[in-house]
């Protein structure tokens, strides 16, 4: 008989996997439910928004847990491809369209149509998706998704007009996993994940990184992901 404690990580990973499948079905059905609500009734449909937001959050957390588990076991594959950044960002916006409508949040996309860059589509998508979901929670009325090139690096910006990141987070931006913040329930997992995924992207000696700011593009928080 194997040691139960040694089996735990594997059992955990396969359970997470299972949960994720169910959650996928749940989210898919939820999208279908929203589609059935007449469009004019969607804005401000609070309960549906809560359902969709919370389900998305659980889904994101699971995606991150699975990825970090694999990263720890050197099983997280990295597939750097060359992608059209505008298409990529547009898709991230569209994936969240129903939630944005329900919560009456205006989404602005700002990216050059011809911009293309090297990155892992799936991994960066889960990073951005997670930050977007988070911003949807805190923002007041607006969300900005921007991509541009600065100093030969691709920069993804997710900005909102909410209250901004707490000071502690801005000051210790390299130590996101500070433990659970009891008032917000935030674990910093999302930012930790983003930092790890950014670091996997390299160009020569340069590695990707994450930066947090407040009140630059919009009055609220601003997440910046640099990919060399």
């Amino acid at each position: 008989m194997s040691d139960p404690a040694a089996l735990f990580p594997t059992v955990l990973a396969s359970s997470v996997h299972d949960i994720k499948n169910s959650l996928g079905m749940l989210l898919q059905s939820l999208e279908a439910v929203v589609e059935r609500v007449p469009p004019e009734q969607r804005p401000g449909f609070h309960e549906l928004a809560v359902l969709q937001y919370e389900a998305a959050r659980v889904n994101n957390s699971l995606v991150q847990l699975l990825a970090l588990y694999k990263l720890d076991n050197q099983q997280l594959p990295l597939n750097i491809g060359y992608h059209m950044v505008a298409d990529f960002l547009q898709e991230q916006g569209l994936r969240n369209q129903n939630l944005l409508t329900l919560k009456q949040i205006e989404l602005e996309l700002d990216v050059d149509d011809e911009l293309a860059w090297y990155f892992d589509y799936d991994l960066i998508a889960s990073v951005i998706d997670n930050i977007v979901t988070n911003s949807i929670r805190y923002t007041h009325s607006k969300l900005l998704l921007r991509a541009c090139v600065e100093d030969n690096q691709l920069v993804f910006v997710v900005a909102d007009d909410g209250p901004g990141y707490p000071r502690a987070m801005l000051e210790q931006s390299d130590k996101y996993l500070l433990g659970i913040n009891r008032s917000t329930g935030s674990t910093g997992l999302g930012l930790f994940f983003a930092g790890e995924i950014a670091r996997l992207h390299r160009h020569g000696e340069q590695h990707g990184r994450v930066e947090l700011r407040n009140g630059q593009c919009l009055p609220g928080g601003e997440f910046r992901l640099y990919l060399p």
Partner: protein
Amino acid sequence: MDEHPTMISYADKSFLILDDFPEFRRSLRTMVQQLGAEDIDLAATGEEAISLCANRRYDIILSDYNLGEGKDGQQVLEELIERKLLRRGAIFVMTTAENSTAMVMGALEYQPDAYITKPFNKVALQARLDKLMEKRLALADIDQALEKNDTARAIELCDREIQSKSRYALACLRTKAELLEQEERFDEAAKIYASLSADRPVPWAMLGLARVTLGKGEAEAARKQFEDVIKQLPTLTPAYDGLAKTWVGLGEPIKAQQVLLEAVRRSPKAVLRQSELGKIASENGDLETATRAFRQAVNLGRHSIHKNPDNYLKLADCLVKGIGSNPVEDKRSSDEVMKTLHELDTDYKGDKQISMRSLLTQGSLAKKQNRSKDAENAAVGASKLLKELDSGLAPSIALEVAEKFQTLGKTEVARDVLQNCAELYSDNDQIRAKFAELETDSNVMKQTDQALNLNGLGITEFEQKKYDDALLHFREAVKLAPRNISIVLNTAQTLVEKYRLQPDARLLTECQGYLDQVRSMPTDDKRYKRFQGLLQLTQQLKQAH
């Protein structure tokens, strides 16, 4: 955001939706209908999807990766490509419940047009499909050239995209590099791969570079490159296959086996890799690993296009070899041999070569169990089937078959098998060595050596376009080794070149005669395509004469 800027219509497109969850099939169908599609088929299993694809060519296929029992989405894609059931311009999208990168890295050579992570909604799907349609439309000329196997034209069209720095430039660069590689223009391919992988770990470019280095015969450099790829991208399993192949080339089969074991641990589902591991482990004398690998190859292969009778036979052979350790194990092994061969006989009914080899293995088992009458019957049955075969045996199979006939006491038959094969493959060292063992008369080998020398001279002259001189040497060579495939094909090709300069019908008749001498070559021989090409060309020229 509901109205979409592009004007792509899906009304005239045929869709196939493949998912094992009825709920998801329904939801996807609704989405696709909302995009305007009318012609939509649904399938719940890979098998069902493939039989649908055998009847009609779909424009767009949306397939889930995980399909429960049976084939998975990747295996469906592989089979559709291998069986040419997918048009070049068709779009195959893999839907996945989790991060798809693991799937990408495990199967770099058969990639869908896109992966899309579940859950997704209508607008996200539409955006993705629109982009894919735009891309196929923009690259339709290249697809057409590739469909016609017009490599030169395809490369030219790729160059156009690359020079204009279009949004598909990188995709075209990859296609171009792969085409150059196929044409064995290794230096040009290497240049592209190297430029793309110099400072970013782009998987296909890094892998391509190492592969090309190996193709150029620089095994030591290739080893370093493959090892570097694995260090940077440990989940890129095709890199392990390349490294194993390199180790074999460097004469280190034990290291090759270690590398493959690691790859199999990471990604246990690849049939071809399991069967490669089995072969190398057999050569290394590691019966246990070999047995396990061939067993896996058989089990995994059931649902795969890579199902291969060799794996069944090799598994049975390994099991037979292992018999003799202890009675309980032996009983289990012999049961598995019979079960494996029974499945093989059923699945490949009518294939005489397979039936013969299966009988030989049954004979070997009987001999090992001291059932001498059964062994004799099997050997007699097998030699009867041998006479009925309509094509020759490839060297590795001939060696195996001859060895079994010999063990079963049919030395004469073994000799015939080898002689037959040696005529077609007199330049194959293994066959020569084995044949020399059995054959006391070394005259045949001497003649072959002479023929190969002449063949070498002919090749040099052919390359210098001195066709008359080349023909002199080739004709001499072909007289000495009339069924040697390489020599015959070289002679035929020279005759065709000569005919183009001096259209004399007799040259074509002579050419046809030589080609007829190797007609029985195994169809899976690498040179079979060249043989067919020359045969067709000769017939065309004859008709036009």
